[in-house]
């Protein structure tokens, strides 16, 4: 993917994003990218890993889903039919059908549940996402079998933007209470493991992140640390060279784009990140990461 291509596709994405509640055609987005419709569809799919119309529909449904939950009180919440019309659906039925296809539940059930699960949304694809994909080893992951493992370390809630991860790595192993012994890599997986966990029914927008080290058995003598045991299983492994604060975009690509097209179940409870080397404080260094998604 070249720079010029990315810029043109971002222009087209801008057209879609500016008109999520307005009338827009794929043809108009193609014009903004200065491509013919045929070449635009080919390039958009290559760069963004969605077809243009699919991107538009998923973005509209994602915004509609967030409006369904919204911050308004019950009495001030918009009606479902009004949200449907706002996002250019012709009827409650067509909205409901498309909504169920994307989120697995009807709009009313989604509203009653009251939580937004970001794994099921599609957030706006930005220059950050495209830049990251450019640096990935490829959009096609390897399929691997991992043995069960125990990861011991520090866990904290982090925001959706994944701020604070580098601080966790700094805290781990610097104080006597959190110091942890090293372990050599095995099975091609380095000892430095991050685990991004997605709590079920969690109302806050963010995730739990564990910064830890792979251990053979649970480390019981250090009460400041927690241990997480992962069962053996099949994973899709993606290779990235990225900074800590890019984890948000990595997860968004894998969960919101790759996983939803793959046919595998999307409600993965966690994503495992094996770092090529110990993450440094500051989080500004680019580090090799093998991001592994369990295949359910």
């Amino acid at each position, binding site marked *: 993917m070249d720079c010029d291509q990315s810029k043109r596709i971002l222009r087209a994405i801008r057209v879609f994003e500016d008109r999520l509640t307005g009338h827009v055609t794929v043809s108009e987005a193609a014009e903004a990218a200065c491509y013919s419709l045929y070449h635009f569809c080919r390039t958009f*799919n290559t760069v963004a890993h969605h077809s243009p*119309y699919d991107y538009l529909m998923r973005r509209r449904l994602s915004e509609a889903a967030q409006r369904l939950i919204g911050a308004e009180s019950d009495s001030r919440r918009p009606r479902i039919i009004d949200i449907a019309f706002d996002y250019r659906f012709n009827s409650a039925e067509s909205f409901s059908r498309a909504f169920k296809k994307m989120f697995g539940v009807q709009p009313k059930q989604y509203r009653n549940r009251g939580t937004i699960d970001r794994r099921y949304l599609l957030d706006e694809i930005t220059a950050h996402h495209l830049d990251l994909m450019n640096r990935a080893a490829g959009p096609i992951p390897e399929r691997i079998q991992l043995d069960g493992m125990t990861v011991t370390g520090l866990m904290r809630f982090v925001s959706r933007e994944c701020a604070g991860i580098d601080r966790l790595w700094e805290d781990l192993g610097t104080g006597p209470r959190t110091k942890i012994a090293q372990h050599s890599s095995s099975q091609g997986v380095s000892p430095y493991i991050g685990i991004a966990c997605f709590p079920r029914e969690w109302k806050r927008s963010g995730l739990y992140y564990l910064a830890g080290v792979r251990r053979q058995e649970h480390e019981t003598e250090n009460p400041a640390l927690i241990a997480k045991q992962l069962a053996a299983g099949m994973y899709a492994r993606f290779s990235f060279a990225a900074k800590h604060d890019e984890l948000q975009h990595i997860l968004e690509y894998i969960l919101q784009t790759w996983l939803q*097209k793959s046919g595998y179940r999307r409600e993965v409870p966690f994503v495992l990140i094996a770092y090529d080397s110990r993450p440094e404080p500051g989080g500004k260094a680019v580090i090799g990461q093998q991001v592994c998604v369990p295949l359910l």
Partner: protein
Amino acid sequence: MEAKIVQRERMTLVGLSFFGDPFKEKGGWNEENEIGRLWSRFMTYLGDRRLQLSGEVPGSSDRTVFYEVHIIHPETDSTGEYEIFTGFEARDVTFTPPEFLIKVLPASSYAVFTLSGEQITSDWYQIIYRSWMPGSGYREAYRYSFQMYDQRFKGTKRLDESELDLYIPVTADANA
């Protein structure tokens, strides 16, 4: 790009088709898109002895000529979806196996462009419709076009050694 204007009689093609966004990737382990999958499906049948079409299949003596037809749908501008048909020309379709479709293209004048190497994956559509057609004295006659693959096409992994002909149905532009 240079164009030759040729006349072709009505063409009867036998093959397979897909409707949708042809570049949509399935994701997962194989990033092949719908066009690639259509050709794979089609090629599977070529060695099949059940595919016995009576009459000659025109083309060069060592290689059948294949066609990939792109047909615009009324909603194509809105959704980016259209029909792709891949097949070959047959004189007699009486015994066409049920696995296949028959596509008839009308007799028409065509502007023929030869694409080679990088041109094959360039935005030729934009160049032809935006740069060549205005001022050519011609306009689009039908909302389809096709690519003709013969022995000059060496495969997707050898595009730099390949050539194919692109046919755009045209009619004289009365306003030119």
